[in-house]
C-alpha cells in the first residue's frame, strides 16, 4: 500500500517538476518570430507541393521574409494573385509568372498501344517501369497506373477509362508534382493557353513507333511543313512545338488537321 502511495507521489512530483522546468524554459528561452512570416504563410495556398524549391509553404514564407534575394513569385500554384500579395507583404517587387498546366503527352490506351507482356505486379508506375521498362512495347508511353494521380495534392488528375490520366484544367495549378514522379516523363508542363501540343512521347523513328502504337507520332514531318510560321521543328524524330510562336501568331491549327495519326492535338 505504501509503495502505491510512493509511486503516485514520486511520479506526480517528477512530472510536475519537469513540467514546470519546461514551462519556465519555454517562457525564458522563447524565440521571437517575425510576425510577417505567419502573415505570408497565411497567404500561401498550403498545398505543400514544394514547387517553389523550399520544403513546404512555411519554409518558403520564412525564406521570402528573411532573405532579400528570394523573389516573391516562386509560388507556382498561387499564380499572380499570391505573388502580388507576397510582394506587398514583404515589400518586394513582383514579376509576372507565366502560368503553366500539366499535359499528358501520350494517347496509348490498351486498345491503341500494343502490350509487350502481361504485367500483374504492384499497380504502380515505378514498379512497372522496373520490369523491362514497362508492359508496353513503346518504352516512352504512359504506364497507366496513376502514380501521377496519387502525387497531385490538388486533386487535379484522375485516371480515365482508357488508363490515361486526365488533367482537370480548372484544378491544375501547374506545380509540377506529377511531372516529377512520372518515370516516363509523359506528363509535361506546358504554358497555359498553348494552342497545339504533341500527344505522343516517343523518340523512336516513325516505322518503329508505328509498330508499337496506332496513335504514335510517325515522324512524317507533315506538321512541320504545314505550319506557315515555323513554330514546329523536328528534333530526335519528333516535332517540337514552339508554344510562344504557336499561340501568339497562329489560330488555324492546320497541323492538327493534317496529322495522320492525330498525334498533334488542339488544346481548348
Amino acid at each position, binding site marked *: 500500500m505504501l*509503495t502505491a502511495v*510512493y*509511486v503516485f507521489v*514520486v*511520479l506526480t512530483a*517528477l*512530472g510536475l517538476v*519537469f*513540467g514546470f*522546468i*519546461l514551462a519556465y*524554459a*519555454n517562457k525564458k*528561452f*522563447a*524565440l521571437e518570430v517575425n510576425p510577417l512570416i505567419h502573415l505570408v504563410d497565411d497567404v500561401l495556398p498550403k498545398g505543400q507541393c514544394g514547387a517553389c524549391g523550399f520544403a513546404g509553404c512555411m519554409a518558403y514564407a520564412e525564406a521570402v521574409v528573411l532573405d532579400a534575394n528570394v523573389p516573391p513569385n516562386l509560388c507556382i500554384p498561387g499564380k499572380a494573385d499570391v505573388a502580388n500579395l507576397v510582394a506587398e507583404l514583404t515589400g518586394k517587387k513582383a514579376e509576372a509568372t507565366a502560368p503553366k498546366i500539366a499535359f499528358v503527352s501520350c494517347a496509348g490506351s490498351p486498345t491503341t498501344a500494343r502490350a509487350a507482356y502481361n504485367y500483374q505486379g504492384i499497380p504502380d508506375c515505378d514498379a512497372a517501369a*522496373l520490369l523491362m521498362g514497362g508492359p508496353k512495347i513503346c518504352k516512352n508511353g504512359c504506364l497507366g497506373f496513376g502514380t501521377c494521380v496519387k502525387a497531385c495534392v490538388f486533386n487535379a488528375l484522375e485516371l480515365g477509362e482508357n488508363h490515361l490520366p486526365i488533367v482537370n484544367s480548372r484544378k491544375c495549378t501547374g506545380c509540377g508534382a506529377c511531372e516529377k514522379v512520372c518515370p516516363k516523363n509523359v506528363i509535361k508542363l506546358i504554358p497555359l493557353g498553348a494552342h497545339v501540343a504533341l500527344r505522343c512521347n516517343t523518340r523512336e523513328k516513325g516505322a518503329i513507333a508505328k509498330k508499337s502504337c496506332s496513335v504514335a507520332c510517325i515522324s512524317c514531318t507533315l506538321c512541320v511543313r504545314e505550319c506557315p510560321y515555323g513554330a514546329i521543328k523536328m528534333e530526335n524524330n519528333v516535332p517540337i512545338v514552339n508554344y510562344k510562336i504557336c499561340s501568339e501568331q497562329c489560330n488555324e491549327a492546320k497541323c492538327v488537321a493534317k496529322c495522320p495519326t492525330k498525334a498533334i492535338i488542339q488544346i481548348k
Partner: protein
Amino acid sequence: MSEYFLLFMGAVLVNNFVLTRFLGLCIFFGVSKNLNASIGMGMAVTSVMTMSSILAWLVYNYVLVPFKLTFLTTVVFVLLVASFVQLLEMIIKRHMPALYKMWGIYLVLIATNCIVLAVPLINSENSYSLLMSIVNAIGSGLGFALAIILMASLREKLQYSDVPKSLDGLGIAFVLAGLLALSFLGFSGMIPL
C-alpha cells in the same frame, strides 16, 4: 584506473550499441546517408547521452532507490530523457542558433530514442558510480558515433557502385550493417567480461 579504461573500451568496441546490441537502428539507418550529418548526429548523441546519464544517476540514486521504486526506472527515465532533450533544444535554439541549425533536427529524433534511454538503464542495472556512468555514457556515445561514421563513409562510396535495383537503398544498407556487425564480433574476445 584500468577499470574505467576497460569500461570505456568495452562500451566503444565490444558492446557497441549499434553493431552488437542492435539499439538505435532507426537513426543509424536514417542519418547515415551523409557523412557530415552522421558526424553531427554522433556528437549530438554523445553529448545528450552523457548529460542525461548524469541526471538519470541523480534521480535514480536520490529518488528511486530511497523510496524503493526501482521498478519504475524505465518509466521515469523515459520522462527524464524526453523532457531533458526538450529543455536542451530550447536552450540551444535561443543561445546557439548555429549549433541549432546543425543539431536541431537530430535533437528531436533523439528525444524518444532507445539508445539514449538504454545507457541510463544499463548504468542503473549495474549500479555504476557517477564517474563510471559518465565514462560508460561517453564510451557508448563514441561507439555509436564510430559506427554511424563508418556506415556513412561506406554508404557514400556505395552510391557509385552498381547495386542491383531490388537491393538499392535500405536493402543494401542492411546487408552492409550486417557485415559491419560481423566484423565487430571480432572484438568480443578482447575484454573478458
